[in-house]
């Protein structure tokens, strides 16, 4: 017998409002079960989120600290300015290779100064320092040629393996086969740490810095790639906002309802579902091979992401316009407004919070997109210098945050793996910020009818 079947006289006669009968109990149990399923679903979702976030934060946090070595480096004139002219153009002829021995002997002096006995040569000892350290000293000297002939204290990056040791990623046993660092180096690092020469501190360079080559992960930062992302988002905003909103308004308010507009509507929905890699191939063919725009440029990346984002902006914008009740339009038309006036003075302002939310969500999706950038040259060793200005920011080669994370995750040194997770944390902070703006806009301006 099903629930809906008519009941017999005998059954209704025995029914009490206080003692639930078998059928009511079954129905109540079914409801409780369903609620339980719902709770389980929510709990599983939250559980996954918690696992994801703790993994990201646990793996990513070490990237935000970095080990530095504070050394007093003697800069003999004979090495850094052999011509003796203090002319930066001439001093630039001394390459970073010339500075390396200076740092090695500075470190050896510091080790000896701590009373540590070692039979390692200064060059071997110098493996404790980053391969990027000589460049840092050279930059300082070229910026201020009067430093030649003096002793200057520098805060230099330690090599990624020393940094990994302080973070617990590298153990002595891991170095048994390593060519660059011995366990003996780590003993020295331990002593220098006690003396305060080697210190692990906040890593501002990771947030503001540029990408580095594979031999010095300790120097790599996500700043330049983040700037590349910002320039791409500017392009997306400048193009997708006017085109997307105009298309949505026209289709929703003005377009005649006929077969052609139906086809267009179906196609917009389909475009929103096209995998993003397809837009990358399109961008390669259209913008780089036909239009000859520069490779790896944020302008091209922005154009590709615009194509991808357009349908994803049009659809929520149309939904926001549909949500404005027809009575608003009719009232405006009734007091003599033209169709355009009714739309722009009355409907659009009311639909704006929904449209803006759609745009921000669309931008956030575009910000996290990697696949289309694979094909237009934004993966590799690209984001290595800051752009010179606004035009350079759009046109000179740069990467984007998700592309940079992908690139780091591929590299051989485990220190890059840690930085990839750190990059994810930065990217998530950006996304969270954008979504927060969307929520605030909705809360502040949304109206209900």
């Amino acid at each position, binding site marked *: 017998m099903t629930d809906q079947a008519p009941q017999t006289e005998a059954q209704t006669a025995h029914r009490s409002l206080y003692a639930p009968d078998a059928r009511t109990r079954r129905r109540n149990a079914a409801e409780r079960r369903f609620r339980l399923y719902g709770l389980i679903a929510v709990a599983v979702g939250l559980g996954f989120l918690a696992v994801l976030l703790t993994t990201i934060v646990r793996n990513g946090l070490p990237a935000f600290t970095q080990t530095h070595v504070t050394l007093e480096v003697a800069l003999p004139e004979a090495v850094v300015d052999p011509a003796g002219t203090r002319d930066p153009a001439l001093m630039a002829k001394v390459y970073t290779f010339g500075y390396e021995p200076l740092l090695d002997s500075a470190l050896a002096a510091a080790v000896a100064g701590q009373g540590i006995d070692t039979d390692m040569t200064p060059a071997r000892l110098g493996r404790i320092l980053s*391969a990027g350290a000589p460049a840092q000293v050279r930059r300082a000297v070229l910026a201020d040629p009067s430093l030649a002939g003096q002793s200057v204290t520098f805060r230099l990056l330690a090599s990624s393996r020393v940094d990994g040791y302080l973070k617990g990623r590298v153990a002595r046993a891991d170095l048994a*086969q390593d060519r660059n660092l011995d366990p003996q180096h780590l003993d020295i690092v331990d002593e220098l740490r006690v003396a305060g020469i080697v210190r692990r501190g906040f890593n501002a360079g990771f947030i503001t810095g540029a990408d580095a080559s594979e031999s010095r992960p300790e120097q790599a930062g996500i700043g330049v790639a983040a700037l590349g992302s910002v320039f791409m988002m500017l392009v997306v905003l400048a193009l997708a906002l006017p085109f997307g909103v105009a298309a949505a308004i026209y289709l929703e308010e003005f377009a005649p309802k006929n077969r052609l507009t139906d086809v267009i509507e179906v196609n917009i929905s389909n475009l929103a579902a096209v995998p993003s890699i397809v837009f990358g191939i399109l961008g390669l063919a259209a913008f780089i091979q036909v239009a000859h725009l520069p490779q790896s440029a944020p302008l091209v990346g922005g154009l590709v992401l615009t194509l991808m984002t357009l349908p994803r902006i049009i659809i929520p914008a149309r939904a926001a316009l549909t949500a404005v009740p027809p009575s608003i339009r009719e009232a405006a038309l009734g007091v003599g407004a033209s169709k355009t006036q009714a739309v722009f003075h009355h409907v659009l302002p009311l639909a704006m919070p929904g449209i803006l939310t759609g745009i921000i969500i669309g931008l956030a999706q575009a910000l996290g997109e990697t696949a289309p950038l694979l094909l237009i040259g934004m993966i590799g060793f*690209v984001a290595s*210098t800051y752009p010179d200005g606004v035009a350079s920011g759009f046109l000179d080669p740069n990467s984007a945050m998700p592309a940079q994370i992908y690139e780091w995750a*591929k590299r051989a*040194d485990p220190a890059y793996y840690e930085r990839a997770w750190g990059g994810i944390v930065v990217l998530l902070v950006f996304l969270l910020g954008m979504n927060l703006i969307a929520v605030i806009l909705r809360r502040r301006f949304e109206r209900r009818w």
Partner: protein
Amino acid sequence: MTDRARAYLAPACLAALAGGMAEARDNVQIAGSSTVLPYASIVAEAFGENFDFRTPVVESGGSSAGLKRFCDGVGAGTIDIANASRPIRAGEIAACAANGVSEIIEIRIGYDAIVFASRTGGAEFDDFSAGDWYLALAERLPLGGTMAPNPNARWSDVAPDLPDAAITAYIPGTKHGTREVFEEKVLLEGCAETGALDAMHAMGMDEDAAEAACIRLRTDGRSVDIDGDYTETLARLDSNPTGIGAFGLAFYENNTGTLDLATFDGVAPSAETVASGAYPVSRPLFIYVKKAHLGVIPGLRDFVEFFVSDAVAGPGGPLAEYGLVPDPELAATRRKVAAGQVMEPAQ
């Protein structure tokens, strides 16, 4: 200016700006082999630090993809240097010439070894011979006068000194230049070493068919092609501790804490054994430079000269420190670069 005029002008200006910038380029562009990518980026970084030019852009994508882009033509819209982990093929030289890239400078930057390693704490592989790999991975073996499906399921079936572990090998996919070296220096060698090649000839197979049979890998899941990078191979080993993977020497040297190396024919890979030729599974790495771009793209000439300088590519330089085996004939390469000596056109 009215608002309307401004609205029309803005996109026009943007288009003009983009068009004007498309032709001029003030940085060197490099693409190609993911094996050469770390070396090229190390040099690019040092070049950006030491010279007044912009830091070159290095993209990956594989040797073939890089050479294809290199051969797209001459002009600022095409790349200046292609990285390759194998020599350029005659067909590629012809394709280049057809697009106007007739003068190519070939530069050998050094050598790289392919090493076989397993996860620390996993199955212990001590030593391989080329024959072991052939017998473990070939699809069909000449057994009893016919080409029979490979019966070997465990390494101990292949050779008694190998561990009793199921055969699972992670080798570079076909889009990698490394795969070619693996086929040529391991599978083909092993095919000849074990006498399988002779057996195939005895069965009446011609030279091409026999060679193809030597390098055809089994498809029952024991040989796994890795199309990504070595980090993917490493991740596969993490989830399958009895597996063995093929890596570049430089990758191994950056992950000595997690990988255990196997010797090959009793020789351990190192800069010395690769340079002397004692370690057999090695290959030269190349960069190909478009001569027409020298003197046109700012910094290209300086970059190439810097790349082959002793301080960079020589022993003790940053490339050797990362894991490149320096080329003993670097001085000759430098002379070649200085003279701008180009490759012979394809026959």
